[in-house]
């Protein structure tokens, strides 16, 4: 059911906008195959497509078991596609929780594993149903609340309140059988999650979707999770800038259990420069052995006091990588600058 704000958004979004002429030209000129050929910028290699199909046909069956095992491993360790979280798990930065099922209205659940650091909070939930349910597609907790012992609100569906999560991803449910399923919830912090000793989790509405029907279950589920000392006494490895740079000054470089977070100050950037620096290939991180790391999924820019602050993270390098020195290269308007970061 759409409310007044839905209607407001809909009205605004549905308004006709001015479309660039170039866009209309693409549609109007499409009939001219010559133009299509010339203008297409797709960078497909020139390999004969039959050879490519043959290679795929040979390679795919060989790689299938590896892909299947890897994805199962990732799901089970609830790291999903996050290499940083996966590294943390491999280094035992994970708590496996030993708790009884919380039972309410035929739905029993417990938390199985958890990871919490400055950036990531991953919780693996285990659901058990009194009555079997086949082909579960989705489970959604619509009024989830998570807070800690100091009343820091980690996450809430009550949008009137400020909370510390930027995004939450509900990963696909993995059905074990008709009465058991697992699901990983992944929370990314706005800034930094607090060094909580205990998390209090509560909710009362769970929506289960199968291929055939949707079922809402009301009940009362609340439990607490004691977090291990290594979570709340966590410390990051701080790196500092060891080289001069004309345009870039590192404000923060912190290696945590799940990622490397960097804040860099530059002279104010215009939109073009922002976009240029936002391209993956224009910010490159290298270690002493020459291994390259790509910027992860977040890059934010913020203007303050005549400066632009770039905030970004590398999710494939963590404090478990035994880093002493890193080199970060910025390319901007054909200029190239390198910054050395050291412990």
């Amino acid at each position, binding site marked *: 059911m759409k409310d007044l*704000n*839905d209607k*407001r*958004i*809909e*009205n*605004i*979004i*549905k*308004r*006709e*906008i001015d*479309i*660039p002429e*170039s*866009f*209309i*030209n*693409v*549609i*109007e000129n*499409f009939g001219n195959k010559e133009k*299509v050929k010339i*203008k*297409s*910028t*797709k*960078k497909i290699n020139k390999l004969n497509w039959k050879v490519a199909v043959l290679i795929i046909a040979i390679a795919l069956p060989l790689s299938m078991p590896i892909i299947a095992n890897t994805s199962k491993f990732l799901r089970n360790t609830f790291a999903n596609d996050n290499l940083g979280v996966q590294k943390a798990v491999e280094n035992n930065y994970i708590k496996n929780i030993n708790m009884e099922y919380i039972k309410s209205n035929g739905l029993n659940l417990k938390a199985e594993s958890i990871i919490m650091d400055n950036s990531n909070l991953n919780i693996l939930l285990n659901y058990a149903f009194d009555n079997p349910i086949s082909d579960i*597609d*989705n*489970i*959604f907790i619509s009024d989830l609340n998570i807070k800690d012992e100091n009343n820091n609100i980690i996450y809430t*569906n009550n*949008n009137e309140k400020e909370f510390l999560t930027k*995004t*939450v*991803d*509900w*990963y*696909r449910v993995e059905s074990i059988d008709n009465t058991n399923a697992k699901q990983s919830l992944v929370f990314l912090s706005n800034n930094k999650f607090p060094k909580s000793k205990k998390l209090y989790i509560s909710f009362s509405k769970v929506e289960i*979707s199968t291929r055939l029907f949707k079922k809402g279950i009301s009940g009362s589920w609340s439990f607490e999770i004691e977090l291990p000392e290594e979570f709340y006494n966590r410390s990051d490895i701080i790196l500092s800038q060891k080289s001069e740079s004309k345009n870039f000054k590192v404000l923060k470089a912190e290696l945590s259990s799940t990622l490397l977070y960097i804040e860099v100050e530059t002279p104010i950037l215009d*939109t073009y420069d*922002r*976009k240029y620096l*936002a*391209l*993956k*290939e*224009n910010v490159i991180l290298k270690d002493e052995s020459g291994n390259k790391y790509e*910027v992860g*999924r*977040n*890059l*934010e*820019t*913020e*203007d303050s006091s005549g400066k632009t602050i770039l905030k*970004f993270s590398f999710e494939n390098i963590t404090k478990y990588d035994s880093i002493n020195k890193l080199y970060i290269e910025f390319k901007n308007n054909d200029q190239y600058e390198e910054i050395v970061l050291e412990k």
Partner: protein
Amino acid sequence: MKYYSQDLYKIARSKLDNEYDICDALQETMLSAYTNLKKVKDVEYFKTWIIKILINKCNDIYRNKGNIKLYIDIKDTAYEYEEDSILNLESKLAFENIINILNEEDRTIITLYYNNDFSIKQISDLLNMNENTVKTRLSRSKNKIKEKFKWR
């Protein structure tokens, strides 16, 4: 195709910032649609089908250029809005004002939901995303918009 130009442009714009990239994505989409047209058995699904192709082409371009989200600071614009009455403000707002508040994934969800009237399920299929994630993102985006424009 011209009939769909508003819809297609808004979806491409929700995913890509650069006009050339948007045109490239459209061109790739049309090429792909043209060569696979026989696969569309029901005309009713043509629009959904072509939107799906467009989203994939935009994703390809986005990935090649780097999967980094760029947030544009719109504080100055928001300040001007405060001077206006709510009604005046609403009449001045446009698609760009809405999507500039949001990140790339949320922009596309909002566009598909409000502009194209797709259901949560359809969006989840189109974006290959869990339905719950779509719901959460939709709700977060709605609240971001509400806060930004000081709606109640």
